[in-house]
């Protein structure tokens, strides 16, 4: 096909007119195979050499396609068989089997605690357990490891607390803002091992809400029935750890554990430029923790209804306790409309299920002098003050749930107040 004269072409006297037609040029190769080397549209003589025929052309013939499919199928076969469970929780299996999980349950048994406080470092660094027990004059257990999130709380309620022979009568769940409706928060990377420690063999609810929530239906289908797709992460992790281990062993004679320890030492958070690290962390956390949520829309995708259900089925009174974030101290801070609406909807839901909500987010008794770093309270005044506030607020709910009067130790309470905690 000839190229038409373009009115924008240079004047003919300046044109190098090529004798070649802009049509498919078929050329005999040494092996008498034909191949198309020029696409049929552009007269390539006018083009700079960067634009000329691409040498990457695929020979899309039947034999080639057949071979390609065979290679692809063969590689896929290496990933068989199909896994029964879509999410692998075996990282805890060396240290966790049914016995270990049971041992965690048995550890709590001697305490025969009627009250369980559950949360993350907001609880762990916000409540003095001994002081709390002394104030309410009842046994309470405090489960507040740093970094825990709603998936972990769900597993503790489901696999630990509700399986006690003597179950707690009250579980008080500490949280900040949107914490309880972030099912995918802190379930991967370094947190996965902790999650896996609490898992039984089959955790369908956990997998669905924490790990598979962002998969489309197509991806879920691929995940269920295509072994290669299932085992991708395993393969990547395996190659990564194998190469690292083999390199460390062959060059330095290091074992895998020594190699991992060396890497952990080099890339510890304390060794990073803090401004860059904080920026990375803040970007991720900010996006997740402050993004507005519609409570009613997302409720069924979260672990909250599951925890509520488990507690109702086992006769445990669930109490939710919202802690005060440090930025609420700022007089200029104004809670945004989305968050206010979120909590209005949450209160309606909790009321329907007879779950009390204790909200300290706007309590003025806590001020700057009570805080340490971030949202954590200090150990001198903050933790004692907050422990008293929590005991005082929980007192009527504990009385109702335990079926007996729970009185605050007023002598102790007075001591706290007189120590200028207020």
């Amino acid at each position: 096909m000839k190229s038409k004269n373009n009115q924008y072409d240079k004047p003919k006297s300046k044109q190098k007119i090529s004798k070649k037609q802009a049509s498919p040029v078929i050329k005999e190769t040494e092996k008498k195979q034909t191949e198309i080397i020029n696409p049929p549209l552009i007269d390539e003589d006018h083009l700079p050499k960067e634009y000329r025929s691409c040498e990457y052309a695929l020979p899309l013939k039947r034999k080639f396609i057949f071979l390609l499919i065979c290679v692809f199928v063969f590689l896929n076969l290496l990933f068989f068989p199909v896994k029964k469970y879509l999410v692998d929780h075996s990282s805890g299996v060396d240290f966790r089997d049914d016995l270990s999980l049971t041992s965690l349950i048995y550890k709590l048994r001697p305490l025969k605690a009627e009250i369980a406080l559950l949360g993350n470092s907001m609880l762990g660094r916000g409540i003095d357990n001994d002081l709390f027990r002394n104030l309410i004059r009842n046994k309470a257990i405090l489960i507040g490891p740093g970094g825990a999130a709603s998936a972990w709380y769900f597993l503790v309620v489901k696999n630990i607390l509700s399986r006690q022979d003597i179950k707690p009568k009250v579980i008080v769940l500490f949280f900040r803002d949107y914490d309880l409706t972030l099912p995918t928060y802190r379930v991967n990377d370094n947190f996965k091992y902790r999650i896996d420690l609490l898992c039984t063999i089959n955790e369908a609810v956990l997998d669905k809400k924490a790990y598979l929530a962002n998969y489309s239906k197509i991806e879920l289908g691929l995940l269920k029935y295509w072994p290669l797709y299932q085992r991708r992460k395993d393969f990547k992790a395996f190659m990564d750890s194998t190469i690292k281990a083999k390199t460390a062993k062959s060059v330095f004679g290091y074992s895998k554990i020594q190699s991992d320890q060396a890497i952990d030492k080099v890339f510890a958070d304390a060794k990073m430029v803090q401004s860059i690290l904080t920026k990375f962390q803040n970007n991720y956390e900010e996006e997740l923790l402050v993004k507005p949520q519609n409570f009613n829309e997302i409720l069924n995708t979260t672990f909250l209804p599951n925890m509520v259900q488990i507690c109702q089925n086992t006769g445990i009174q669930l109490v939710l306790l919202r802690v005060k974030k440090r930025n609420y101290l700022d007089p200029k801070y104004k809670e945004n409309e989305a968050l206010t609406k979120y909590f209005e909807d949450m209160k309606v839901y909790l009321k329907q299920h007879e779950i009390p909500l204790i909200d300290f987010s706007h309590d003025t008794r806590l001020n700057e002098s009570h805080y340490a770093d971030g949202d954590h309270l200090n150990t001198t005044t903050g933790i004692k003050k907050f422990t008293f506030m929590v005991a005082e607020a929980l007192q009527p709910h504990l009385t109702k749930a335990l079926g007996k009067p729970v009185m605050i130790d007023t002598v102790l309470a007075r001591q706290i107040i007189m120590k200028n905690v207020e």
Partner: protein
Amino acid sequence: MIFTSFTYLYFLVIVLVLYWVIRNKFYQNVLIFVTSYIFYGWVHPWFLTLIAASTVLDYYSARFMKKYPDKKKWFLYMSLAGNLGMLCFFKYFNFFAENIQSVFALMGFQLSPFTLKIFLPVGLSFYTFQTLSYTINVYRGTLEPRKNFIDIAAFVSFFPVLVAGPIERASNLLPQFEKERKFALSFINIAIPLLLRGYLKKLVIADNVSIFVDKVYMLQNPSTFLLIAATLAFAVQIYTDFSAYTDIARGSAILFGFRLMENFKSPYSAISPSDFWRRWHISFSTWIRDYLYIPLGGSKVKTTLGFFLVCVATMGISGLWHGASWHFVIWGIYHGLLVFAYHKLGMGGKWQPKGVIKRFIAWFIMFTFTIFGWMLFRTPNMEWLFEALKPQPYQIEMSVAAFQIIALTAFFSFPLFLIKLMDKYAPKNQYVHAIVYGFIFTLILIFFQDAGQDFIYFQF
């Protein structure tokens, strides 16, 4: 919308089907124009005002250059001012403001900060250069101004090249928009390997290598060996990341019947700085050569000082184009110094040493210079680099990490090496092609993540 997402694949298929059903050249260009604007405005629709403004400005500048030839210089200035003004404002305003403030502070005057929260539109650096090539060529008389606005708009906004190049010349791409395009199966023959190579480079190599590169460049005091290992990995990362984008852009464009230029030609085989810039980001380096370096005099400048200034200014501006930060400028100036030094030593231009050993030595030296240049490019700031290059007590853990980084980089780069071997020794062997491409396709499926990491050059 990024190339490595399912959204882009759906988008590409839909547009392709519509495009080839339409058949009429004019309506095909309208489709490209409309879908390119959808592509660009997918996340931030306000970006479209800038590209539209640039397109309209250059369209009329070119038309008026022809209509009023005695005033064509003013229309060229108008185009330059508009495009470069937009680029300078969105990309460099805060950079210049902060530096002016620092200069005044050094002189003892305290200026109140006047930086703005300006969001840099993706691809601005690329399409402004692309449109400028049109107006400059019209000014020079090497290209006639176009009357058909749709052709110009489609050329400027053509989505495969819009966000990260290649920076196409109007003289090469525009005529392709003006010719009839008919579907041929050879398009698929050529597009598929390009797309596969692009996705392999991005998903399998660049995204995985970047994990440990980022970690090392976040350390307070990495050892020199660890820094070198991470920089070697970064050299692989930036090459595969950027060339992946080009491959995917070229593969996508070929499906529409367009030929885009190659942007990389084994850049790490370079034996001199001039050779390097003939192989790395070719569309950008040739743009700088044709519109900045040569008009300033190029290698024909008579005085040594003059030639030195031309090299440093050209390459410094090239560095600045990459980002509003001093370490990019220093990287550019560094390459300018290399170009100058090699020229003065008689090793500039198309110099080729004779003999295998001499070539190897030349290659090794240039490769070392390139790696050091990447250190300047990647460093978070110059203070960090100075600290990192200071001698430190030996820490075996850092050496362990360094060796692991080298091993992992080699592992992830292996498929690329396989492709190079295939291209060199078995370019027509369909058995080899089947095995290699089957392997590559499987790797892509293993490493594919929807909406994975951005391409590095998006930030430019």
